[in-house]
């Protein structure tokens, strides 16, 4: 289990290679990579976070995933600061004996990171800057994980 909250750029491919290396006890690795999407006119995305709470919140979400599924490992990376269109924002990786656990845990981590980890996105375009509003769909997505 690893959590990295960092300003520096990361390479999702290099992260997957390192995460996969030397494992013979698992059958499935799932990764999710979030990319800065430019729907037109985006100059940069700025991500603010809450140092200290961010790491705690993500570690709690990871611990919950480990309790729910048969996971052998997980990784969460999330950047903050200014990001260019096309740049990786964040990445989740899960390693499990079976694919069902790896997929479910990765989706769970994403759903909770979206709505429970203290990050805020601000889009800067040629005409100004605006905080990204939370989507109701993201909050609703948590519903499927309630027992």
């Amino acid at each position: 289990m690893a959590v990295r909250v960092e300003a520096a750029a990361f390479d999702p491919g290099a992260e997957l290679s390192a995460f996969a290396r030397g494992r013979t006890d698992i059958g499935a690795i799932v990764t999710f990579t979030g990319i800065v999407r430019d729907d037109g006119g985006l100059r940069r995305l700025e991500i603010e976070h809450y140092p200290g709470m961010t790491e705690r919140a993500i570690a709690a979400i990871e611990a919950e995933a480990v309790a729910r599924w048969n996971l052998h490992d997980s990784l969460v990376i999330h950047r903050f600061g200014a990001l260019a269109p096309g740049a990786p924002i964040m990445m989740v990786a899960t390693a499990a004996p079976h694919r069902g656990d790896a997929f479910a845990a990765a989706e769970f981590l994403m759903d909770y990171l979206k709505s429970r980890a203290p990050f805020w996105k601000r889009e800067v375009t040629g005409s100004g800057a605006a905080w990204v509003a939370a989507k109701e769909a993201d909050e609703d997505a948590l519903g499927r994980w309630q027992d």
Partner: protein
Amino acid sequence: MIDVLYFAWVRERIGLPKERLDTGAATVADLVSELRAREERYEAAFADLSALRVAVDQQLTTFDAPLAGAREVAFFPPMTGG
């Protein structure tokens, strides 16, 4: 004494990221009432509590949470990470 932190547009409206307050507020809601009474910029930031989230000592909680023993309270909009 308690540290009060503001993030995203809450920080922008209030005009600072953090302040140290001497408060006798029993709950988060009481602290919000105190802040709103201080200045217009606080009133503007806390006008709609349904648009805000709060963490006490870095744990998400609700506005009726007690503040006894708390060292840090943070106010911010719903998160948009991932």
